[in-house]
């Protein structure tokens, strides 16, 4: 299984290599561009369709995305606002949807559990009125050892609230880190996010598996203990790109394939 994944990734890397030079223009100069292909399996959205996103793009030529997340949706560097994955998502969505006005706003809720965010979500959504809300969750709950059942109910409640507000939703799970793995009990939170996504028919951006794949195939060395922001910026750039691909795929938008495929 792992071997097949590695092979797929390797193939993706080879295919993607010549495209790097073209992509570089769209990213801030100091961020090193990585060819960080994601195995198609990890971005598969099946039958789920982001109807609101599709409608907004086709009818209004306008797409408003709101990212609700915790600390790992940001970077603490001076230029954090432009290099964290929400900003990169905006750049890549604009690239993928050339004639559409794309805006990505973030609403960070650092140190707040899924339950606290779920309670605030209706107000946040009605304030921003996005077409799509991307909810990154699980890390704070894992750190605070929130009971997995309570966590699940909270995520379910939040997604129900987003649907009630007539907004599409995407769930994003935890970051993968080989070093923190032994300290942070990730499995119950990953399982529950996946379960809610399946039951609620909401796409899951499996950040954990994607980062794990990158680490295993050597795209990134995530156990690197350097204090520099270089690795973090590259990872966020790649997450932004993968997330844009997921959104476009899940909205079943008939747009040109990303440049990487040329």
């Amino acid at each position, binding site marked *: 299984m792992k071997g097949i994944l590695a092979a797929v990734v390797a193939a993706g890397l080879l295919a993607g290599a010549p495209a790097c030079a073209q992509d570089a223009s769209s990213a801030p100069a100091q961020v090193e561009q990585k060819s960080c292909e994601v195995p198609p399996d990890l971005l598969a959205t099946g039958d789920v369709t982001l109807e609101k996103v599709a409608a907004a793009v086709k009818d209004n030529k306008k797409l408003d995305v709101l990212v609700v997340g915790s600390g*790992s949706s940001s970077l603490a560097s001076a230029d954090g606002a432009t290099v964290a994955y929400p900003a990169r998502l905006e750049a890549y969505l604009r690239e993928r949807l050339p004639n559409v006005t794309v805006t990505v706003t973030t609403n960070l809720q650092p140190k707040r559990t899924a339950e606290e965010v779920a309670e605030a979500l209706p107000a946040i959504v009605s304030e921003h009125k996005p077409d799509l809300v991307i909810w990154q969750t699980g890390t704070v709950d894992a750190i605070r050892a929130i009971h997995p059942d309570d966590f699940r109910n909270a995520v379910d409640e939040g997604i129900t609230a987003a649907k009630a507000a007539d907004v599409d939703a995407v769930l994003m799970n935890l*970051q993968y880190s080989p070093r923190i793995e032994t300290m942070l009990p990730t499995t119950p939170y990953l399982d529950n996010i996946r379960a809610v996504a*399946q039951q609620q028919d909401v796409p899951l951006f499996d950040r954990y598996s994607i980062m794990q794949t990158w680490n295993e195939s050597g795209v990134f060395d995530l*156990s690197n203990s350097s204090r520099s922001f270089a690795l973090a910026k590259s990872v966020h750039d790649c997450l932004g790109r993968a997330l844009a691909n997921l959104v476009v795929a899940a909205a079943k938008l008939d747009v040109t394939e990303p440049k990487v495929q040329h």
Partner: protein
Amino acid sequence: MTVTAADDAMALQKPLTVAPPVGERELRLDLFRGLALWLIFIDHLPANVLTLFTLRNYGFSDATEIFIFISGYTAAFVYGRAMQDRGFVVASARVIKRAWQIYVAHIFLFTIYLAEISWIATRFQNPLYAEEMNILDFLKSPDVTIVQALLLRFRPTNMDVLPLYIVLMVFFPPVLWLLRKKADLALALSVLLYAVTWEFELALPSYPSGSWFFNPYAWQLLFVFGAWCALGGAKRMSRILHSRITVGLAIAYLLFAFSVTLTWHFPRYDFLVPAAVQRWIYPISKTDLDVLRFAHFLALAALTVYFIPKDWPWLKSAWLRPMLLCGQHSLEIFCFSVFLAFAGSFAITELGGSAWIHFVISVAGIGLMCAAAWLLAWYKGVAEKSGSRAASGASGGVS
């Protein structure tokens, strides 16, 4: 599932017994507890090739159920005999002594954990993981954290089984007493407590928030059920256990669980599980020992008893002896395996774990567990031969 089959099964039976004659060691228990220890060790390591072979990928229950059930069984077997020979007070004292040993082992493992994460905290400052490093906040207030750990309220990841075991053992003397007087009443009370736990959401609080990962109010059912089986329950159920209907039901249920589990790994087959069924079965709580998990364990146990007889020749084979030895020294080997899991994860991270290194470390860990078990068995043999008093103290080693 098996229990509901009881009445139908009464019609077709083969007169066979499953309970061991008193005094003879039930090797199947040792074997499967050894297997459970291996699986728990593999599950505690970062995922690797061997993880594909662990039980939890193929159904609802996992190695924890096996471990707790067999622990209940052997505890009743060993301390039940002590209670018969030496009386309630002496047997209780031995149970409590055992609980104390487990407590000390738990605190020892906690110290190792503290050492590991303090090391990481001072060396690992990658800004990508600024948020995740908040897990180390508790190092800032050791006054609270260490006291909470001593109270078993603060438990790092992978350190949840021993606190459950401690609580189960501390309350075991009165349970054992009742089991020996009125076995069915004790089991009924255990089921009642389980039901009350689900109805009123009983739980033990943990620090800094939430509750125990393994809820003792719920998991006691498996422990008491194991003890009940040891004290004659298994013998009385032998007709049911050897009926074809039971086997059929067990296989059907295991297949159902397997197909549901498949949809977790391959979400595109999710449509195969109807929404109504999903609403009914999810969430499958591990904390509160979901009925589906319990039933899954029962089905596995029923098939095991049916297909692997007590005098199964393989039980004496040299190939299975390492697993058997691990099962016979379960507390020591369990603690050692938690330590090895810490050390192994640490090594995998620091050596930049390729799939190959993962595999080597997993196999080496199991090898070390077996070597330790062999050493313990050798020492126990020597101690017994020399007629040392140490042997009587070590007899608790089977529970």
